[in-house]
């Protein structure tokens, strides 16, 4: 039985519909990440789950119980907010233990649980400080501690790492993931950062304008994106897309001919025009390669690899090549494309072919 279920929920603010009917179920202990550009409805979905917003229609179930109209406090969820939402006038100890204190948990047990959480999150030295005397990362750890001492059914994370600097974000993302796995608590996590989504999730839910574009494990999302939007959103640098013709079992990009893999050729059948997608990192040798000439406009050496940004037959392209790849701006340069990694999308529906 799914642990958390959203059953055809909708949400509109006045005349503006934010969520069309949206359904999603999350298994027990699963780490699900909702990801999408801003305004895609991911935060609204999370807030409906938390009870901070009420769905206009549809049903929310946690552990089989209908909580659609339950108050936030009655759902046994714990939420971590983007700007921490700590109680500024309480110490770290007070913040973490406040809910327990209000609910009449004995003093000794509060102390024990706060100490345990503090140890887990390396907050011991700061227990008597107030939030304003902590760094961003420490504050967010306090917020996480406050959530986990409640031993909730579900953790809800609303972009918890967005306010942290890049290095800390990488550390915290691992910490949160490990913690969730150790506790085995179901988690729903909202972010706009696809790297965060890919690295943390058991299952990633990609959203756009309130709709779920694809919900799958990170590797499936990367290897078999359901449509052009997902393909573009997942992966960095983003996938290249070209409007191409299909002729004689080959992709025709302007005058350049890229022979198709047999399976792809069969699948595309009699289609004449498609969108051809290839990731920058799939421009290297393979069993089935095709040569593509491009005109680099900028060269970005990143150390482990180099990015060529330029144009091929008038369309923009990014290619990831070896650091010592011989290329210079303005001079035509030929890369080998791994055609086994090619993606094709319908030009009308943008769905995967």
């Amino acid at each position, binding site marked *: 039985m799914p642990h958390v279920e959203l059953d055809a929920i909708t949400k509109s603010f006045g005349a503006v519909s934010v969520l069309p009917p949206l359904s999603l179920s999350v298994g027990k202990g699963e780490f699900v990440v909702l990801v999408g550009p801003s305004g895609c409805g991911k935060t609204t979905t999370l807030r409906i789950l938390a009870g901070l917003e009420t769905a206009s229609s549809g049903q929310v179930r946690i552990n089989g119980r209908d909580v659609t109209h339950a108050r936030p406090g009655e759902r046994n*969820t714990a*939420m971590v907010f983007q*700007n921490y939402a700590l109680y500024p*006038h309480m110490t770290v100890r007070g913040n973490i233990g406040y809910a327990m204190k209000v609910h009449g948990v004995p003093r000794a047990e509060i102390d024990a649980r706060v100490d345990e959480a503090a140890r887990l999150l390396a907050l011991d030295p700061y227990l008597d400080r107030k939030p304003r005397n902590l760094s961003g990362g420490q504050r967010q750890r306090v917020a996480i501690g406050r959530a986990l001492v409640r031993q909730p059914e579900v953790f809800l994370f609303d972009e918890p790492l967005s306010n942290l600097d890049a290095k800390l974000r990488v550390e915290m993302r691992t910490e949160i993931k490990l913690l969730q796995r150790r506790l085995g608590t179901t988690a729903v996590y909202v972010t706009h950062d696809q790297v965060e989504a890919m690295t943390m999730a058991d299952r990633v839910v990609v959203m756009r304008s309130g709709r779920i574009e694809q919900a799958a494990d990170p590797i499936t999302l990367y290897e078999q994106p359901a449509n052009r939007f997902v393909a573009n959103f997942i992966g960095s640098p983003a996938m290249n897309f070209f409007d191409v013709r299909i002729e004689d079992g080959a992709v025709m990009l302007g005058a350049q001919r890229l022979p198709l893999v047999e399976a792809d050729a069969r699948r595309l059948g009699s289609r004449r025009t498609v969108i051809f997608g290839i990731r920058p990192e799939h421009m290297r040798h393979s069993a089935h390669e095709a040569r593509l000439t491009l005109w680099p406009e900028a060269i970005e050496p990143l150390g482990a690899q180099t990015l060529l940004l330029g144009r091929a037959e008038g369309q923009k392209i990014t290619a990831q090549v070896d650091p010592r790849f011989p290329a210079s701006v303005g001079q035509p340069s030929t890369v080998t494309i791994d055609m086994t990694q090619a993606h094709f999308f319908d030009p009308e529906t943008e769905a995967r072919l």
Partner: protein
Amino acid sequence: MTASAERQDGIKHLFIWPAFLIVLVVSLFPLIYALTVSFQTVRIVPPTPPRFVGLDNYAQIASSARFWGAIGTTALITFLSVSAQYVLGFLLALALHHNVPGASLYRVTFLLPMFLAPVGVALIARMVFHPYLGPVNDAMAGLGFAYMPFLTEKWPAIMVLAVIDTWQWTPFVTLLMLAGLQGLPQEVFEAARVDNIGAWRRFWGITFPMLLPLSVAVIFIRLIEGFKIIDTVFVLTGGGPGTATETLTLFAYNEGFKKFNLGLTSALSFLFLIVVIVFGTVYLAAAQRLTRRYA
């Protein structure tokens, strides 16, 4: 130093001196003059030449029961009305913050009393609480109570004065507390709701402590203002019966502009200043301890 820097240096005098002179003439000079007068007997009616008497004026005031009575009355009215203003003002601010129906209408009407001149308010109140013509006594008679001599007996009169001050200045507290409430971070309250902390605990555990520094400031402003109460007392009771409702400022007014005993009045003004400073300091010290502990 370059030439232009020197010229700018000259300009600074142009900016500083007028302000300094105005402060000197309007504020410092009268203060110092009043201080010297407070050590003299200066009577205009009948005119007598000023005579240095040292601390006699102060001694005379300190030994008069009327002075201590005035301090007691002023402190009592201020304490009653500021307490009521704070509680009511905060409650109204909470109601407006949570958008009760018609909040935008209330927001304007609640502020109206604050815009009225205190003398006007006092004149209205004199009619409202009139022993025979006023609607309050009519209503009480209708409910079967005896007529109440609101303005001619000590305790009812003090209560009326506190009520009027409350009526006029609660909007001020509402306005500032509402601004404070609207400045609080929303997520903190959402976090508390998710953590199943009820509205009552949310208020006492989160809202109130977070607004404590603002509360301290608002109450302080009202305390200082409240101590200066004179217009309503002057119009409603004139300090009577006897001197039962006489406040410090009214006492000073009576000495200065009815008896024209200016030396004594100046001394009284300085004592008034000292009283306000003492009350203010005690209050701030207490408030600071409270803030350090809870906010």
